């Protein structure tokens, strides 16, 4: 893995906007093509193999959590437990997730798994692919995200109700809308009948006890880019348990377990010999150099990095009331003050590609930049 400084394309902003990528910059560039990462094929095969193995282990960990009723560790409301288990037992459709890895000195370690509402899908699947077409069409990239999304939606079609598939996200975020509409694009290409319906436009018919769209048509299949922990935290979410249509929500509710950082100590307890896992616990008693993470947090909020008795870094935020986990410190590699985290995508049941986000410090936060990659 090498970091290569390169000249951005002339008018790169225009090039990415033509793809519908409107959130390439905030106060600072988010899409950053002044550099890229170079991998050799052995490294990519290693990342791919690790992702596939971890996906299998994660499924085993979900079963373990259910068998041993560990839900309180995950701060999951009791009322939802039967529903979560039902979505697991009935194998409700799920389509994607993103492992975040630290890759340093040839060793890959799992930092967390974004299993419910992973973003940067469009950057990874589309924007960096077109970037590489401009840079050198003959170069390869760990990126079959687009193909795999279309193929898996086509496969899932038989597992959905014979009814439109709705796609939903919040109205206020162009990033969320882009990710959601990209997903819908792939579903359309997979042969599905789709609708866009913003999350706060979802209706509930208290008489019929079903969810409704804006035309008062029942919703039976819905992809939502909206976290389960928010859904169960809002009173409206209780309707899911009453829903007579038994709507299929994608990602399904059992992803609440995998997207929660409490899964990290569970994975470590179950698979301590796995080379891709870091020691992780529900208390810090056994660790001297560690990262304290809220079990529910986003964009690197409320993280503490501790080495010995020294606080290396701390981030602010509003998370943490549900509890924390403690994971052995494994610093991201330092490329002249740039710290990349590898996001490895699982689509369906398979590794599908990679996106890299860089930060100026050890915590990948909401100021991180997406940096493309290629394979030599």
């Amino acid at each position, binding site marked *: 893995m090498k970091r290569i400084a390169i000249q951005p394309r002339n008018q790169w902003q225009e090039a990415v906007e033509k793809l519908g990528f409107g959130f390439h910059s905030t106060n600072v560039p988010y899409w950053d093509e002044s550099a890229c990462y170079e991998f050799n094929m052995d490294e990519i095969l290693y990342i791919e193999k690790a992702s596939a193995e971890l996906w299998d282990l994660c499924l085993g960990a979900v079963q373990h959590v259910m068998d041993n009723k560990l839900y309180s560790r995950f701060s999951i409301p009791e009322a939802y437990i039967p529903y979560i288990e039902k979505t697991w037992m009935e194998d409700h459709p799920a389509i994607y997730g993103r492992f975040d890895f630290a890759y340093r000195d040839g060793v890959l370690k799992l930092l967390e798994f974004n299993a419910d*509402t992973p973003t940067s899908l469009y950057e990874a699947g589309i924007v960096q692919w077109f970037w590489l077409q401009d840079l050198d069409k003959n170069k390869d990239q760990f990126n079959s995200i687009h193909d795999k999304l279309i193929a898996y939606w086509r496969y899932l079609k038989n597992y959905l109700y014979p009814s439109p598939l709705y796609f939903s996200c919040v109205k206020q975020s162009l990033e969320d809308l882009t990710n959601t509409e990209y997903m819908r694009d792939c579903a359309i290409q997979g042969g599905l009948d789709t609708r866009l319906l913003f999350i706060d436009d979802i209706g509930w018919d208290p008489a019929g006890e079903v969810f409704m769209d804006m035309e008062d048509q029942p919703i039976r299949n819905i992809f939502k880019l909206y976290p389960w922990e928010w859904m169960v935290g809002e009173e409206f979410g209780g309707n899911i348990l009453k829903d007579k249509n038994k709507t299929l929500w994608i990602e399904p509710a059992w992803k609440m377990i995998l997207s929660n950082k409490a899964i990290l100590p569970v994975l470590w307890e179950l698979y301590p010999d796995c080379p891709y896992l870091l020691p992780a616990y529900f208390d810090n008693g056994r660790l001297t150099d560690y990262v304290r993470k809220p079990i529910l947090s986003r964009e690197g909020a409320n993280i503490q990095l501790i080495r010995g008795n020294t606080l290396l870094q701390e981030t602010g935020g509003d998370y943490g009331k549900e509890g924390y986990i403690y994971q052995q410190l494994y610093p991201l590699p330092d490329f002249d003050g740039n710290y990349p985290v590898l996001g490895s995508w699982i689509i369906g049941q398979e590794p599908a590609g990679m996106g890299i986000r860089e930060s100026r410090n050890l915590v990948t936060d909401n100021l991180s930049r997406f940096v493309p990659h290629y394979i030599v």
Partner: protein
Amino acid sequence: MKKTKHIQLILITAALASCHHPSNDWQSGNRVYVRSDSTAPYTRTYNYGHAALWFYAFRPYGSYYNGVYRRAGYYSSAISERGNIGGNTGKMGIVRGGFGSGYSVSS
């Protein structure tokens, strides 16, 4: 090869271009000023060809009643009247707005 050989986007390019419609009055961070609903799949207006038309097609309209704003529908002749909440009393029983307290899921 580890990369997709060919990529075609049938929906997102034109649709999302409209969401990046700059406006000095309304622009604030990454907020989106497009509104759509289940009656208005983007493909319905795909051939309009200009982003500004998207912008206006999905612009919501509504009215104030006792100081409370009620959204009634969308400016677009392409959108089914059944999609407009305003004059249809049969729809008054549906509860909306229950989800959506979060701002963005970015992870």
